[in-house]
């Protein structure tokens, strides 16, 4: 058994990466699956695997889910290996890719796959790949964010490659369908299930790996996120409690927002609890509280010290994010921030914050002020995304009484025969997170 002192996160992560690359480059299986907890170096792994496959002379296609992810991957590839020609296959819409790619001479961009034939690496979205026809399939593919890809999207592109590396985070939001798909629930190829679910149902013998270390989450957050959302596949943080420090030049003025900021700076978590009340989705008090916390974070001259650099980096607006459950809530927070003169803070829903990283996040709790708890608000992945975007601290703004609400509304989704029941369910995960947050509670009446 590994003792606390003997655990070397760098070595553990390197061992896992070596095993993954060995199976990918030399293994005999058609597919390799890698589960990656939040911030465990998934993108780094994808880039490294891509470069090794390119080195081995195997033509490679990379499938990502959104254009932003594709552009990000292409820039990372270009940065790591400036000599490697990379193809960026894009749609024929206006502004199909990030203009920053135009500055990279080794990146060839086209809306036609034929123009990019022969390049060692071609990257595009699943939606675009689905329209590509080839006579000769690619030798290898990397499918990024495979847990967020729907089974039917994989069906449309799987004919393009012989073998593939599937990388993704099983704890994040599951893909969803706009219409009911109960009719296919329980089928191994249920088109609304995730690509990995279908892949493993048909190919249970494929090797599955796991990245064991989160480099993003601080030591204060990794145990909670691991216990609440990944109880059967635990991970550790790559840093220790002393490695990161968040401090503020301006002392607290004693208000609720300032007290919760101090609590979060000290412990990594903060819960700003407003008086219990049923509210509309865009709860004006809660929205204003979120905006005030962000304003104070900026006003108080925060500095984030971490293992990345010797000097502490100032906590600027682009290092802060606000996460909500609904788009109208995000819009309301944006408006409130604009009123307080705050710009450049990312405010978005859980779906859109997936895969992104900040120093401090401020979260409007999905169940805050609600009279009921629906499956949408209870979804495990939603809370997991919101609670795992930060490197230093996460501040949750919430109305009191959510744990009673949870007890009143246990999850009632029908269990379908033949489908894998997801553990932990959102109900349990919500309780676990709330219990932990309660230790860092600051009650405030605005």
């Amino acid at each position, binding site marked *: 058994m590994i003792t606390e002192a003997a655990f070397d996160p760098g070595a553990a992560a390197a061992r896992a990466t070596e095993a993954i690359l060995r199976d990918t480059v030399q293994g005999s299986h058609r597919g390799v699956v890698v589960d990656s907890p939040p911030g465990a170096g998934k993108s780094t792994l994808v880039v490294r695997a891509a470069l090794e496959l390119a080195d081995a002379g195997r033509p490679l296609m990379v499938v990502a889910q959104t254009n932003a992810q594709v552009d990000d991957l292409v820039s990372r590839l270009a940065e790591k290996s400036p000599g490697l020609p990379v193809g960026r296959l894009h749609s024929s819409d206006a502004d199909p890719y990030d203009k920053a790619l135009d500055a990279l001479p080794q990146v060839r961009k086209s809306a036609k796959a034929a123009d990019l034939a022969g390049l060692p690496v071609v990257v595009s979205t699943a939606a675009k790949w*689905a329209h590509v026809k080839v006579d000769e399939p690619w030798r290898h593919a990397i499918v990024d964010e495979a847990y967020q890809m729907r089974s039917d999207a994989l069906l449309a592109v799987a004919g393009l490659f012989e073998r593939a590396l599937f990388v993704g985070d099983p704890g994040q939001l599951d893909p969803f369908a706009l219409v009911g798909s109960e009719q296919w629930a329980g089928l191994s190829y249920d088109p609304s299930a995730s690509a990995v679910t279908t892949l493993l149902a048909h190919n249970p013998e494929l090797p599955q790996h796991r990245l064991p270390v989160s480099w993003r989450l601080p030591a204060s957050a990794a145990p909670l996120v691991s216990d609440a959302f990944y109880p059967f596949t635990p991970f550790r943080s790559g840093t220790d409690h002393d490695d990161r420090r968040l401090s503020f030049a301006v002392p607290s003025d004693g208000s609720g927002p300032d007290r919760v900021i101090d609590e979060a700076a000290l412990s990594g978590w903060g819960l700003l609890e407003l008086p219990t009340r049923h509210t509309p989705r865009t709860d004006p008090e809660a929205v204003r509280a979120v905006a005030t916390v962000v304003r104070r974070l900026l006003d108080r001259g925060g500095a984030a010290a971490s293992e990345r650099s010797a000097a502490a980096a100032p906590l600027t607006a682009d290092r802060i994010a606000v996460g909500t459950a609904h788009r109208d809530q995000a819009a309301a927070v944006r408006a409130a921030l604009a009123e307080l003169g705050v710009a450049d803070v990312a405010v978005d829903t859980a779906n859109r914050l997936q895969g992104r990283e900040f120093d401090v996040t401020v979260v409007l709790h999905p169940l805050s002020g609600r009279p009921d708890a629906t499956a949408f608000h209870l979804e495990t992945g939603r809370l997991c995304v919101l609670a795992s975007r930060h490197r230093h601290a996460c501040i949750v703004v919430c109305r009191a009484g959510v744990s009673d609400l949870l007890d009143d509304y246990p999850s009632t989704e029908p269990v379908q025969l033949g489908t894998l029941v997801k553990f932990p369910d959102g109900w349990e995960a919500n309780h676990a997170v709330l219990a932990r947050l309660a230790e860092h509670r600051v009650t405030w009446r605005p």
Partner: protein
Amino acid sequence: MSLISTLARLEAVATGRAQPTATVRHRHLSERPLVLVPLVTAGEAGAPLGALVGTDRHAPTLLVVPQPRDRDLRFAFLAELADVVLPYVDEYAEAVEAAERSETDPETGKRVKVEVELCADAPQLIVPSRAGLDFVRLLGRSMRFRRTAEQDPETPHPAPPRVPLLGRWLTHFGERSRVPGSALLLALTEVLGRHWATGQSSLEDQHLGALLAWIDPPQGVPGAEAALRAELGRDADGQLLCPPAGPATDPAFDNKLLAPAIERYDRARTALATAEDGLEADDRLGELTAAERAIRALVADATRPTWDKVWDGLELLRALPEGAHVEERWTRDRWSFTAHRDRVLAGEPPQPRRDDAVTAAGKLAAREREQARLEAQEALDDPLVMAGRRLAGEAFAGEVTDVVMAYSEGRRPSPRPLVTVCTDDLPYLGERVKVHRSLGGKPQAAEFVGYEGEGLLVLRILDRMGRGKEPEAGSVPEKGDLICFTLFEHDQRGGAKLPDPEHTPWTHGGPPGEAAALPEAADPVTEEDLL
């Protein structure tokens, strides 16, 4: 639930009447729909008890299974149902018009236009509630794999001749009803619920009687009271004044009326079977006929109120003018009907029990496309629906206050006029977000440039202005025009092409193989099937 429908429900509570959530009818209604009000036996999902069915409000056909556990009687019921439904379907299968469809030429692989038949109209089945839809699917599923004596002389329990065919058609209707906006098979509560908001929950709206009580309450009675009476009101015998719309029946009806009547029927049947001479048999046959007639009367009483309510509901819907895009969606229903007619005529086997991977993915993609298309079309057809989208920040309407001509950069500058719109709406616009408006039925795109002041937003028009340097007349909004832009697209692009089922990739289990080529057999007969 959207904000506007919450408001409509609150208003319904306050006024005691359902509030309209649409100003036009968003579903096609046939001139001559076939209404089906089925009932099932408690405790056995697939055992029909009876049905009222027909196209004439005043002359429904009553079908009854006096002993629902008797398989022969059940087959007789299904055969009678087939005699009503199939002639109705056939009527529409015969009248055709010429149409064009693009198909992939098997030799060249190119898309070519082919002249094909399209049925001039299609049948329409109406059931009272969502549970009725499931029952139609269940009936279809239970019948389509049956074999008739003609198909398979060896089969131990041959089905009456047209029953498997009825199963295939009901399966098609049931499957098509899952496509958003389709109208081959409609549940009335769903259609009414689309057009009115009541002061009760959407779960309670599934009770046809209560729903109609809110929409069209008796003179001077508030909707809530009328709905409560529809749900709970009972007569002196303890029977519901408004029996459930089925297919499930009320337990009080089952216990007090139906069970004794069936028992009497069973006794009469046993007595007839043990009759010792012709005279005795005549008497006992009379008793059996009387017992059967009593059950028929019970089933008629239990279905007739629902039958009348269905036609009342249809009348209410017919009073609304049809939405502009409804005809287009109905045409797709006609294509679907024609395609299934052709499959039946070509002698293809019945629909498989489970979709294969490719079919399932294809259906899901098609339905998602139809859902998005339906939402867009309903908003374009109906200012009240558009108001809901505007309230949700997904559209905005306003007056054009300024138009400044501008041109794109490049070798051939094209017009890119800047239009300032004054609006009270609060759309969720970000930098360069695309917005769309309907210009002569075609979508015109613009992008959001920025705010010029409170409620003043600037758009750059991007397309549909012709090929010339100057935009075509009428293609650019003018000062003073009232315009409405949406953040959602008006039309849906076709999805990616999926592989053929025989090329199913390894990730999805590979090609189906030879097992799938064999026709599927009916479910094996188990001991429980035989009494």
